[in-house]
């Protein structure tokens, strides 16, 4: 996936450039935080989490997905976050906090959280969790549900469309293919994008890609 790097060479700084979701993370400038648009929007004076934000069913919903079965065993020890390579360098990505929000039922906050897309799926958290929570899989489930709501970061859209068009995740330029054969490698095997498109139609994947977001 790092092939997209040249494209992004210019913009190194922002951590969440791709997403359109509103953020309440601590990384916002102080002036924004003091304004507290959250409570304005909900027409309430207090900064507390409001009753309508809780969806106690959310944790069960996650548990019903493959890989989410053990979610409710989490006792918030922080092992996942402490050795997470991303969390060590990010100001906002905390797998434990995402799980905490899910357990509390803050469905909207989890699914619209931009940090959701920062998991590198290295599975260190999953391997080390003392309560067998498959943390990386739980985050994948969050993402899959967010996609159903129309949130897909551009990069995943591109990868998805490429796969359906070419069979593989990248469009390989002609020049490279020529170069390949010059180095003595056999030509790349033929691919069958038609079969993939058929499958994508069947499963609704195509719809997801073309849908809003």
């Amino acid at each position, binding site marked *: 996936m790092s092939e997209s790097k040249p494209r992004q060479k210019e913009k190194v700084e922002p951590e969440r450039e791709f997403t359109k979701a509103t953020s309440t993370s601590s990384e916002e400038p102080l002036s924004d935080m003091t304004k507290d648009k959250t409570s304005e929007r909900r027409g309430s004076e207090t900064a507390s989490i409001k009753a309508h934000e809780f969806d106690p069913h959310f944790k069960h919903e996650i548990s019903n997905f493959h890989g989410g079965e053990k979610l409710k*065993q989490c*006792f*918030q*020890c*922080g*092992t996942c*976050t*402490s*050795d*997470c390579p991303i*969390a*060590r360098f990010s100001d906002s990505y*905390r797998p*434990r*906090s995402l799980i905490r929000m899910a357990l509390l039922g803050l469905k909207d906050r989890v699914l619209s959280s931009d940090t959701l897309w920062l998991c590198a799926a290295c599975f260190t958290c999953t391997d*080390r969790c*003392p*309560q*067998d929570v498959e943390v990386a899989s739980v985050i994948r489930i969050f993402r899959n549900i967010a996609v159903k709501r129309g949130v897909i970061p551009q990069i995943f859209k591109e990868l998805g469309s490429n796969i359906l068009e070419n069979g593989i995740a990248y469009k390989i330029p002609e020049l490279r293919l020529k170069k390949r054969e010059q180095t003595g490698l056999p030509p790349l095997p033929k691919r069958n994008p038609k079969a993939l498109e058929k499958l994508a139609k069947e499963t609704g994947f195509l719809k997801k890609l073309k849908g809003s977001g």
Partner: protein
Amino acid sequence: MVEDIPRIGVFICHCGLNIAGVIDVKEVAEYAKTLPDVVHTKDNRYTCADPGQDEIRKAIKEHKLNRVVVAACSPRMHEPTFRKTCAEADLNPYFFEMANIREFSSWCHPSTPKEATDKAKEIVRMAIAKARLLQPLKEIEVPVTNKALVVGGGIAGINTALDLAEMGFKVFLLEKTESIGGHMAQLDKTFPTLDCSICIEGPKMVDVGRHPNIEILSYAELVSVSGYVGNFKVKIKKKPRYIIADNCTGCGECKEVCPIEFPNEWDMNMGVRKAISVPFEQAVPLIYTINLDHCIECYKCVDACGARQAINFDQEPNEVELEVGAIVLATGFDIYLPYDNPLYGYGKYDNVITALEFERLILAAGPTGGKVIRASDGKKPHSIAFIQCVGSRDLKKYEYCSGFCCMYTLKNAILIKEKYKDEVEVYILYMDMRTPFKGYEEFYRRARNLGITFIRGRASHVIETPETKNLVIRAEDTTLSQPVELPVEMVVLCTAAIPKADAGNVARILNISRGMDGFFMESHPKLKPIDTPVDGVFVAGACQGPKDIPYSVSQGSGAAARAATILSKKKWKIEPIVAEVNTELCRNTKVKCGICAKRCPYGSIEAPENQPAEVITAMCHGCGTCVAECPADAIIQNHFTDEQISAQIKTALKDNPEGKILGILCNWCCYAGADLAGTSRFEYPPLIRPIRVMCSGRVDRDFVLEAFKLGAGMVLIGACHLPYDCHYISGNARMKARMDALAPMLQKLGLSPQRFRVEYVSAAEGLKFAELMKEMGIQLKELGPETIKRENAMLKPILEKMLAKKQRKSK
């Protein structure tokens, strides 16, 4: 008396309005009168109260009653009461039977009084059917050897031994290592008072050593145990010390001349001891031991010992046999050494140690003279972090909480702070701080006031800086949602308390079970925390699960009291609901059978070749598993005979069998769970007709066949949860094996699978039982009587043939 025609008295209790508020008690009484052999009926407001009991006693005399049935609450509640009432009127107590119409009817069917009354009538009818076949039984008495064996000389075992000895009983205290004292003797200070561990334990150890009623068998191991409550035979193997105990004065002159040193396990291998030595100065008994693995046989010690002649290099292991009436296991725990966890670097990084190693470091009499120093450079660290829950609360290692680590961590942290003040920064990484007992929370506050830094997060990784041998701990400060990288100069791992390495072996020797966690299982987690399923064998201290010192001491004394209830008697009474072999029917005389001996959870049946099997009555716990297993129906269980249970089944299914669930429920779990459903007033449809057996292991497959032959709508077998809940070790597993074979066969013959259920309901799962009843009720309705009748018609001839074949065979 057996040939007497039964004269049954039936007493129906109103239980205030508890029963009479729902059930028409008069109607039940009138109905009971019409049943065979019933000569007297009476209803009372409270049968269990004095006037109610009086009426029973009077009626026995007046009406010459030879059977008594009380229809009231659960037999688990008042069966002992009414048995006593009968005995007081000179009626054998086993001529009493109880009909549970409260928990099983009035309390769980309040909105259908008519159906509840009908169900109550049938429950009474079933009780009467069993009562007619009751036999008088005599309690079995066995003699008692009033000596005890205590296995394990830690603080729990020491207390058991001292208490029993003080009560006047002879006690053998078996200790595997060279000295009693256990883990407590390794510790520096104790929480929350900070008194010196060996200073308070030492005098107790000396008391044990001096007590005329206590014989210490140290450096010795348990080999085998046979016999039963009051009459155990124990074999013990004593390892050779190469010292004649009687001649050794403990002077230590031999040690002075010994040239060889080796790592001292007592010091967690941080210090050394001589090849001839004691593990620590306060050892009891104070007898030296030669370690032949290290001894170079220079014989300098022999010269030093001189005329005392205490050294004998030819000593061999020898076996001792003891006879005792009770056994207390106090074998303690091991400390987890996390060599297998590469993330914390134990065994790899010099300055990562366990908490038990830390105890030896900070202990004034320890290998460093009480100086906390780093193994890498011998220098005092300026910062120390304690990592909690190493191995504990971890599904990949030990699922349970080790209980005392929070407190010993606080203690060690406080000791450092009080000793070194602000020269040493102290961190504690914890997940939850658990300080629930007397003085503990106050101790936690003391730690906070000393400036110890608490970080709420589980350390995930320890990294060594190779040049300095300092360490960086990675964790998340979960209160700040912030990953932290904490640099410290020493890391102390607070590791799990785990079952003794040989716990499995000890459990096998004594025929007791271990829980999922590997610790010994108690009989009941709340009401029998010190008993085991084997009568006369008790557990105390950390061998049953991690425990701190006060808890272990209390359990030690508790176990002494429990053992004394046996040792203080000349004879021990055993409930006579045991199994008996009909020697004429037993096949073992002709073919090699012995199935009963193999399947008995207690090993209480012997089946020598060509001889009939024999039940060792005192060892039989009365589960009835052998009765159900016997292929020749040659074993009976007193008070739960085939005829009695069969009569209950027939009576239960006399009318409208298709609309009923016949339930055979084990006394300890499912029946108790059903009782709880009643007590909790969970309402469910009144379809079940319950039969109580002591253990589901008693459920013969013929009972199931019989029930379906008679047209039962459904059959439920209710048992304790697998694998460890069974009160008879493995009766439920035997039942399961039997029914796993039966169920597919019945289905093949055309029985809908939902009509035969085996369910596991604990005594705490009243709700589960009620839900189960609702679910089965719905299924029964869905199937409908027509389907059931059709299936039954198809099944009946085959079942009849199967049952007849069995009967022929047994004749």
